[in-house]
């Protein structure tokens, strides 16, 4: 039996559940998925400023906790924390290992970066506009598959660090390596992909993002444990979590995660397979223990998806609160004033009244009078100076707006846009870099 634990579901994820899994999970592999769509473009920006950077901001904190455990237990780590710079990430891990006196072998997998290989005349999938209309482009990264990780796993490295790899592939690769599954063994590859998809968001399978008090209760949510899977030779898996950790694994939590962010459940595209979720069976075999089997698949696509990051300007945002009598009326007036004062300079300004309709753009329940309302103004502008005008005008409401406004907060943030294109698989080439520390 092969056991794979899920130690992170996004870049900013909690570290403690991964540490617990590493210590007590009797794992063969710990996978840390830390790369969202735009995270890599932000990492590319950091690398532009400093060529030694561009990996996950929490890499250091995570490895300081995990490396000593890795030296004690016999498991391997697979992670996309390399982000825009897997080689620098591997070097940093070795430096930390040196400080902690932990011998380690780290393999960095590169080749996802295809910025100089994309055709700027090609249309992006979202809008049909040519790629060049999204200038200035920061980065283009192809989603690599499990095959890109196999040489690193064969190298015997303790830690495999990558950049853009499809999330389920991070889990599938250890399965393919351990059981020597062939790429054309579609049922096993599809089944491994489904297991990877279930695990990739970590806590979202064990009751994170699920609780609704009194309706969908989750015990000990503050101590939420992360999941692990025991996978057999045929790809059949049992998913569980550590005894004593918080959270819950039920058919309901597993079903929500199975369909999470899936745009076509009958044809879930990854670089490894096109998986069919309509044949997947979930079975509760014990408390906090789910069996998953039955996935089908067809041959992997010939094209890989590419995420392109581009500079989209600056987001200016500001808020101010109104409370008590006619709070809504005063907040709406404040928004209208800001709109009028800025309309010559900034075309599309968004005004929200937080407390009534800001989240869903409307209310699905009959009108209730809120005691307090927070007015929010936001717009994307081509320059930081122009974006800052939003905050200036909201702040000016103190002495130039309706009565009783308070608590202004304002910010300006650079916006990285993301669009997608496709690239032929053969136009990517992966490379392995090994960094080793023996003591």
């Amino acid at each position, binding site marked *: 039996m092969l056991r794979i634990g899920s130690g992170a579901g996004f870049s900013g994820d909690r570290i403690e559940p991964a540490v617990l899994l590493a210590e007590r999970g009797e794992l063969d592999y710990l996978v840390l998925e830390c790369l969202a769509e735009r995270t890599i473009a932000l990492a590319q920006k950091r690398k532009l400023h400093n060529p030694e950077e561009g990996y996950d901001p929490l890499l250091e904190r995570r490895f300081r906790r995990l490396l000593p455990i890795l030296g004690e237990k016999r498991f391997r780590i697979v992670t996309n924390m390399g982000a825009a710079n897997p080689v620098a990430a591997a070097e940093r891990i070795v430096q930390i290992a040196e400080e902690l006196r932990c011998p380690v072998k780290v393999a960095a997998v590169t080749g996802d970066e295809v910025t100089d290989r994309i055709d700027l005349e090609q249309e992006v999938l979202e809008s049909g506009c040519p790629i060049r209309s999204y200038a200035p482009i920061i980065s283009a990264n192809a989603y690599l598959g499990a095959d890109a990780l196999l040489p690193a796993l064969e190298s015997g490295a303790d830690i495999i660090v990558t950049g853009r790899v499809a999330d389920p592939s991070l889990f599938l690769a250890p399965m393919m390596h351990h059981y020597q599954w062939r790429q054309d063994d579609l049922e096993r590859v599809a089944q491994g992909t489904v297991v990877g998809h279930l695990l990739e968001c970590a806590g979202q399978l064990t009751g994170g993002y699920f609780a609704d008090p009194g309706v969908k209760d989750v015990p000990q949510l503050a101590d939420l444990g992360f999941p692990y899977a025991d996978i057999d030779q045929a790809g059949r898996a049992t998913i569980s979590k550590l005894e004593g950790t918080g959270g819950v694994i039920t058919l*309901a939590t597993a079903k929500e995660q199975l*369909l*999470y962010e899936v*745009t076509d459940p009958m044809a879930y595209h990854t670089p490894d397979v096109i998986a069919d979720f309509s044949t997947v069976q*979930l079975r509760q075999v014990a408390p906090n223990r789910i069996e998953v089997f039955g996935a089908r698949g067809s041959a992997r696509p010939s094209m890989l998806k590419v995420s392109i990051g581009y500079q989209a300007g600056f987001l200016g945002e500001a808020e101010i609160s109104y409370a008590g009598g006619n709070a809504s009326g005063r907040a709406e007036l404040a928004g209208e004033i800001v709109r009028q004062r800025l309309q010559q300079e900034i075309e599309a300004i968004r005004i929200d009244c937080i407390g009534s309709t800001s989240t869903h753009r409307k209310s*699905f329940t009959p009108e209730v009078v809120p005691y307090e309302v927070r007015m929010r103004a936001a717009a*994307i502008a081509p320059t930081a100076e122009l974006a800052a005008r939003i905050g200036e005008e909201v702040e000016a409401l103190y002495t130039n707006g309706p009565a009783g406004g308070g608590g202004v907060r304002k910010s300006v943030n650079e916006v990285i*846009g993301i669009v997608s294109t496709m690239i032929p698989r053969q136009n990517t080439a992966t490379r392995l870099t090994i960094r080793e520390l023996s003591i």
Partner: protein
Amino acid sequence: MKKKLYQLAHCRAGDKGDTLILSLFPYDERDYTLLCEHVTAEKVKHHLQGIVQGDVIRYELPNIAGLQFVCREALLGGVTTSLALDTHGKSLSYALLEMEIEA
């Protein structure tokens, strides 16, 4: 008798670019056919008017007693450049659960 979906089912929202993805599962799997009958793509599109501008496609998954609604042009451009407060549209699962059906 009219019932809110909230009383019968649970839902999670996900996003891919400007596409909102809503999965819907009855608490009692025997209610799956009821949901199939009443929660059609057309009704979801109507319920989410003002939010979803594009098509709504419904996928049926009897193997897990679940429905998947894929709603195009629903997130004001999508997570990276949207001006919305909830740029992912993650809270929209509870907008679907506000829908009323005959049950």
